[in-house]
């Protein structure tokens, strides 16, 4: 149970980082589309 809480927190942190990476990739694509 105690480990579960820590695991949930780590998963949340990884999910947030993945969201940041996803938006960064989308931003690069959007800028590339915008300039063509």
């Amino acid at each position, binding site marked *: 149970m105690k480990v579960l809480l820590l695991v949930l*927190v780590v998963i949340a942190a990884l999910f947030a980082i993945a969201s940041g990476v996803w*938006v960064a990739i989308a931003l690069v694509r959007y800028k590339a589309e*915008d300039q063509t």
Partner: protein
Amino acid sequence: MDTVLSVAVVVAYMVLLTFVAMRARAAREFAEFSLAGRALPLALVFGSLAATYVGPGFSIGFVGKGFKSGFLFLVIGLAYAVQNILVGLLLAPRLRALKNCHTLGDAIGQKYDRKCQIVAGIISVGLCAGFAAVMAKAGGDVLHDIFALPHWSSVIIIVAITALYTTFGGLRASVITDAFQFSAFAILLPAALLLVLGSHLQGGAAAFAQQASDATIEGFSSTPPIEIIGLLAAFLLGETLIPPYANRALASRTTRVSRNGFILAGLFSTVWFMVMIALGIAARSIIREDPGEDYVLLNLVQSTMPAECYALLLVVLVSVVMSSLDSLLNAGAVAFTQDIVKPFVKLPNSAALNIGRASTIVIAIIAAAGAVAVPSIISGLLICYTIWAPAILPTLIIGLWIKRPRPLAGILSMGVGTVVAITLKFIFPNLIEIPAIIAALASALLAYGLGHWIENIKSGEHKG
């Protein structure tokens, strides 16, 4: 040396951000300035929404809340996630489906009449200026801590840089910089949490769980139930479809993108609150003395990481402030042009664009001047929440859902909601036990019902 490094990193970041914003090319027509050509993809709608709502309250503030009251604010934060998901399911697609709609005021104008649009526009501009003043104060606080400049000049620097790229690039520049800033803080702050958990957590998972349990019990026992209800109401309703969010719903590529953007933003908020609160809980076993809620994050990073990481944290804090501020400046300017000026004067496209740009600068000046009057970040936000929900939500939500909304109902609801909220918040703050936002919302709903009933009777007499 540390100060020199911090200043260098923050200045470099601001130069980079201004470069990114300038590359977003200046808006050439009002539709670009206000809605970025209605072509935003899902990731940018989501990133920009999240960057706008993650301000100083949802970052520095939530870490402090985690330190003091554990997961109490995760429970309260769930109301915020529910709000975003409900907006995504019920309101955003309907808003996006409206034709020639640039603002919330426009939507209200299409559903009711022009008078309602103007009233909604005045409320929108006032609230955007109020929220922007809170963000300007928060930005001033951060820059004041880094550069040790007088507070007023720190406020001017942060507002001036934000106003510069928002004025020229409009919503497109705002969304692009938001996405850039979102990526910065969504990667760096969770990475800081993983680093703290991996290298500095004494006692491992058991100690973390014990600190979480102690803090959460303390939080629930020291917060009266009526205060929890007030906070839940504020998180559920206070930021619902405020002008910058509505602009992103309207600027989405399709109704589906609009819906999914809000749903994802709602889900992300829960994840984000969990990360921020976990940082606060982890800080309990690292920082022995209570540094004050607003300083937990800064103290934690200072005591666990090298100077380079502290400088990066300052960049993150500048990001969270600027990404909220630019959205508010743009939304206020668009509402002023579309809802207050356009109903009176027929404007050619270039004139509308120029008025939008000029009003961005005026709202920025008002925000910088108003920053002095903001008591604290959280109390400033709560004042804005208390006024926004009763002033606009009944009129907007009912208007989007019923077939023939009555203009008198809209005007009465917006007027009564605003007056009751301001009266209970500023003039008689101790008049009633229940939170002002709930009382003002109930008054606005009653006024709406009354207006609807009166106009129904009138139209019945005409037919008779």
